[in-house]
C-alpha cells in the first residue's frame, strides 16, 4: 500500500461525504433551490475514477453528479453556489444541482435525462479518435440507465467504432425507488449486457476505492492504447434516498445495515489502520473536511443572488437570446 496516495484518496472521499451531508442539511432547511440527488455512499467510484484520468481526459455524469464534478477538481464554492442559487454558481444559476459542469476540469456535464449522455460520451471519444489526441472519455451512469434505448445505442456504437470511452455503471441496486432486480431479466444490469456488444464482463467492488482505481485504470489504459471501449459495473450502494426528498423507506433495514458495514469510508479506514495509520490521523482528516464545509456553506449563503438579467444570456453563441429581429 502506497500510504501517501491512499491517504489522499481517503481525504478526497471524506470531503465528498461531508460535502453531500452539508447539502442534505441545507436542503432540509429549504436552502437548495430545486431537487438534489446525493452521492452519499458512492464516493469511492468518483474518487477512484478521477485518480486514473489525466487533466485532458473527459468525464460525464448524471444528475447524481456533485461528487464526479468535485472529484475532477471543480471548485466547491462554485458548485455549492449553483445549488444554493447564489452568485458565482458554476453554471451561473442556469443548471442547478442536476447539471453541474466544469469544462475547465474536463467534466463535461451532469445529465438529468437518464441515458442521454452515453451517446454524447461517444461523440467526445469519436472526436478524440478522429483527431488522434489520445484523450479518453469516462461516462458514469446508474443501474436504471441500462434499460433505456440510449444506453444500447451508445454502447453498440462505441463498440462498432472502437471508441476510447469507458462506461461506468454505478450499480446501487435501485432505479429510483424500485429494486433493479425487478426490472432486468438478468442478475446484473451492466455486466450481463456487456457480452451483447462484444465487451468483457467487468465487475468491481465500487466501495473499495483502491479496486476502483485499479480496474478503471486498466480500462482507461486500454482505451488510450486503441483497444476500444469498456463497460465496467461498479457495485455500490446509496446511503440515502434517490433524491434528498426521498426517505428510502422501501429498503429493508437489514440490507441498509449490511451495506453500512461496507461503507467506502469504513473500508478505506480499515485498510489504512491495518497499514499503520493512526485512528487519530484519520479522524483529523475527516474533521478538517467537516469544518471546512461548514465555513464554505456560510460563506456561499452570504453571497447575493444572481442578477435577473442573467436569465437572458447564453442561449446563442453571441450571448444573446433573440429568436427574431
Amino acid at each position, binding site marked *: 500500500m502506497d500510504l501517501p496516495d491512499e491517504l489522499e484518496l481517503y481525504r478526497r472521499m471524506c470531503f465528498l461525504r461531508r460535502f453531500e451531508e452539508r447539502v442534505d442539511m441545507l436542503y432540509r432547511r429549504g436552502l437548495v433551490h430545486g431537487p438534489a440527488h446525493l452521492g452519499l455512499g458512492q464516493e469511492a467510484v468518483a474518487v477512484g475514477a478521477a485518480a486514473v484520468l489525466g487533466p485532458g481526459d473527459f468525464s460525464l455524469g448524471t444528475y447524481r453528479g456533485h461528487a464526479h464534478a468535485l472529484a475532477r477538481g471543480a471548485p466547491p464554492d462554485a458548485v455549492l453556489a449553483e445549488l444554493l442559487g447564489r452568485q458565482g454558481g458554476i453554471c451561473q444559476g*442556469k443548471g442547478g444541482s442536476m*447539471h453541474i459542469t466544469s469544462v475547465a476540469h474536463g467534466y463535461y456535464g451532469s445529465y438529468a435525462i437518464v441515458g442521454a449522455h452515453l451517446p*454524447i460520451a*461517444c461523440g467526445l471519444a469519436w472526436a478524440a479518435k478522429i483527431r488522434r489526441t489520445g*484523450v479518453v472519455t469516462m461516462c458514469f451512469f446508474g443501474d436504471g440507465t441500462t434499460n433505456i434505448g440510449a444506453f444500447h*445505442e451508445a454502447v453498440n*456504437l462505441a463498440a*462498432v467504432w472502437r471508441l476510447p470511452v469507458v462506461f461506468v455503471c454505478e450499480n446501487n441496486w435501485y432505479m429510483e425507488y424500485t429494486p433493479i432486480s425487478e426490472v432486468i431479466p438478468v442478475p446484473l444490469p451492466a455486466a450481463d449486457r456487456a457480452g451483447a456488444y462484444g465487451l468483457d464482463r467487468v465487475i468491481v467492488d465500487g466501495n473499495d476505492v483502491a479496486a476502483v482505481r485499479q480496474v478503471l485504470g486498466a480500462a482507461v489504459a486500454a482505451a488510450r492504447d486503441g483497444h476500444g471501449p469498456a463497460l465496467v459495473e461498479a457495485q455500490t450502494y446509496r446511503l440515502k434516498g434517490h433524491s434528498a426528498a426521498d426517505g428510502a423507506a422501501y429498503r429493508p433495514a437489514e440490507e441498509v445495515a449490511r451495506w453500512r458495514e461496507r461503507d467506502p469510508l469504513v473500508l478505506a479506514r480499515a485498510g489504512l489502520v491495518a497499514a499503520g495509520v493512526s485512528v487519530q490521523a484519520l479522524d483529523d482528516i475527516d474533521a478538517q473536511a467537516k469544518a471546512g464545509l461548514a465555513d464554505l456553506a456560510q460563506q456561499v449563503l452570504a453571497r447575493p443572488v444572481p442578477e435577473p438579467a442573467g436569465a437572458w444570456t447564453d442561449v446563442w453563441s453571441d450571448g444573446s437570446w433573440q*429568436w427574431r429581429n
Partner: protein
Amino acid sequence: MAELTYRQAVAAALAQEMARDDRVVVLGEDVASGGVFKTTAGLLDRFGPDRIWNTPISEQAIAGAAMGAAMAGLRPVAEIMFADFYATCWDQVANEIAKVRYMTGGQIGMPLVLRGANGSGGLGFGSQHGQSVENWAMCVPGLKIVSPSGPAEAFGLLAAAIRDDDPVLVFEHKALYGRKEEVPESEHVLPLGQARTVKAGGDITLVGLSITVGACLAAAAELAAEGIDAEVLDLRTLVPLDAAAVLASVRRTGRLVVAEENPGQLGWGAAIAALAAEEAFDDLTAPVARVSGGNVPLPVAASLEAEVDVSAARVAAAARAVVKHE
C-alpha cells in the same frame, strides 16, 4: 455558375465546407455510401473515411455523437434520414443540444448541423416519412431552423449553417431534391435570418418556406392574371426569423397569407400571423389567412394526399378571399 439539382447542391455545400474546414465531419445512416437521397454522394472518395462515417440505425447515437463531437471542437453534420425520425432522438435535440450552452452558463458551445429530408410534396411517403415537422423544432428555444426552397438556397443556407456556432436544423425538402437551377459555384453562403423577396408586389404578401414558396409563386402568377399584384417572401429560416421583412411587406400591402406545410393547428404560420396582429395591426386591411398542411396524419393515396397538402390553388383561393374582404 453550374446547374445543380437540390440534392447535388447539398452535397456540393458539404464538400465546399469540408474542404474549407477540416473540423467538419459527416455522420449518418448510409452517408458514406452517398445516402438514400444521394445528398452525400462523392464525399467518401474525396475526403476519406475519417471525415464521413456510416452509423447504425441509431438516431439517439447519431445526434448524441454529433453533440459530443461538437463539444470536443469538431463541427459535425449529422444526417437524420427522414425528418420524421427526429421523434426517435428528440431528447438529444430538444433537451441536450438546444440547452447545453444555457444550462452550463456558456461553458459548452454547440456548433453542429442536423439535416434531413422533410415534408410531403405528394410523394406518397405517408404519416411517418412525409410529415413536415419544422414546427416541432420551433417550440424549443436554442435551435436555429433552416428550410431551403431551391438548389441555390440549399447550397448557401447549408454552408451558412455549418459555419454557424450554434445548433442548426436544416429541413431539406424531399420533393425538391430533383429540382434543378443555377447555383454559384464557390463561396456561396447565405446569411441565416434574412428572408428573400422572391417576387415584389403591392397588393398582398404571400409568405412561404421551402416547398410552399413554389406554391406562393404559382399562386402569384394566377393572381396576376386576375389583376392582383402579390409579393412573395421566402422566409428561408424560421429561427432566426426575419420578422422585419415580413412586417415591412405587410405594412406596404396591408394583406397577408401564410403558407406552411406543417399542420396548422400549431404551425409556424401562427407565429407569423401573431406577428402581424401584434405589430402591424393598424396597417392590415383584412384578416390574416393561413394555408397549412391538414390537421390529420398524412395519407398516402394521391387523391387523399392532394386533399391535405398545400397547393398553389389553395394559396390563391385564400389570397382572393383576403383581397375581397371589405
